[in-house]
């Protein structure tokens, strides 16, 4: 594992408890995100499992499960995975690194929901991460990728009183489309939305559906 991935794991392990408290029910306040997940679940149908990549406490997997999808979840942080299991005992969660999903077979999934997880992958590694997701998707499998739109990188070394070292990397939509293309994905829909006031960080957001051809 790269040192920056190790640091990411260590940071999320430290904030896992508070993070779970803050975000486990976030989708209740984000109807657009629920609609995007509805659409993902509908289009994947019974073709196979949908992975919540960078699942945190598993709220996206839980929502997909509630819509009838065969959901599972992967996160880099073992502490986060522990909470996801506690909160959603009916769903399977495992520890894994988006840059090297060593325990995931080629074509294991029919869908991937990567909600704000690519934001921790530095620019030089994005195509590799997307390539790894494509490897884990079967032919015709669908990716729903979300991120903050922009060019900046925000760094935190304190979060809820814990010492962390985290970069939150914003991407331009056109830039991410190029990266998806470079990783071999076929773009289907590219949607942007403004932030929900009073609910989330005030950045514009992108939701991209891309298919493994």
């Amino acid at each position, binding site marked *: 594992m790269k040192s920056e991935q190790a640091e990411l794991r260590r940071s999320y392990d430290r904030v896992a408890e508070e993070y779970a408290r803050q975000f486990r029910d976030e989708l209740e306040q984000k109807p657009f995100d629920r609609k995007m997940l509805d659409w993902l679940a509908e289009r994947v149908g019974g073709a196979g499992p949908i992975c919540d990549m960078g699942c945190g406490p598993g709220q996206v997997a839980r929502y997909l499960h509630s819509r009838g999808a065969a959901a599972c979840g992967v996160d880099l942080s073992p502490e986060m995975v522990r909470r996801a299991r506690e909160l959603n005992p009916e769903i399977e969660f495992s520890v894994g690194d988006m840059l090297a999903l060593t325990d995931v077979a080629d074509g294991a999934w029919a869908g991937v929901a990567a909600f704000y997880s690519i934001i921790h992958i530095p620019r030089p590694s994005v195509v590799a991460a997307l390539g790894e997701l494509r490897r884990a998707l079967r032919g015709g499998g669908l990716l729903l990728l979300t991120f903050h739109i*922009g060019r900046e990188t*925000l760094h*935190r070394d304190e979060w809820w009183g814990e010492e962390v070292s985290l970069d*939150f990397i914003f991407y331009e939509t056109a830039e991410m489309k190029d990266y998806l293309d*470079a990783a071999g994905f076929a773009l289907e829909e590219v949607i942007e939305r403004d932030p929900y006031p*009073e*609910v989330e*960080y005030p950045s514009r957001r992108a939701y991209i559906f891309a298919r493994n051809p």
Partner: protein
Amino acid sequence: MVTPPRWTRQQRIDFADMDYPGTMYRAPAQNFRVPTSPRQIRYIVIHITGGPAQDEGPAINTFRNGPASAHYIVNRQGHVTQFVRDAHIANHVDNINSETNRDSIGIEHVNQWNQDGQLTPTDAQYGASANLVAWLCHQYQIPIVHDLARHAPGIRGHIEEQPESGHVSCPNPAWDWDRYISMVQRVQVQSFASLIDSLAR
């Protein structure tokens, strides 16, 4: 071959190197002063750039080269850039050694108001500026009032703080003070701080 975009502003900002947590960019200013003893921030001075630019590029260049500077700039998309730390003195009114600069925080807004065009701030800009000023008022215990009296605690425009400057369009003809002050008053600073924690989603 995918080429990452070129950067015009500082690419990576560290929350430890700035004050307001909603800052999206950090850029250096050439002219600022470190006070000999901790300063008491008593009021906020609102500016507009006035010129034809639609983004903060020219202002970034101006502040980089001095002598003018401000603590923050809010662009028309609502992005906040910090130039000078709150604890330091910027040169946004008269001169770097003035009483006004010593006791205030200066906020620029990208907004044209000259003979060639008159714009008003965007909704995103008012919203971002209101969040910023609400946070500053909370942090430094500044009353959220539009008090026109020079040096009085509160919030006022450049022309009100320094009438002899003749900068009559900074910012008043462009600025809806009633709307702005009521927006600042409505911001819940605690809940705003929690939005920053939600950066991960």
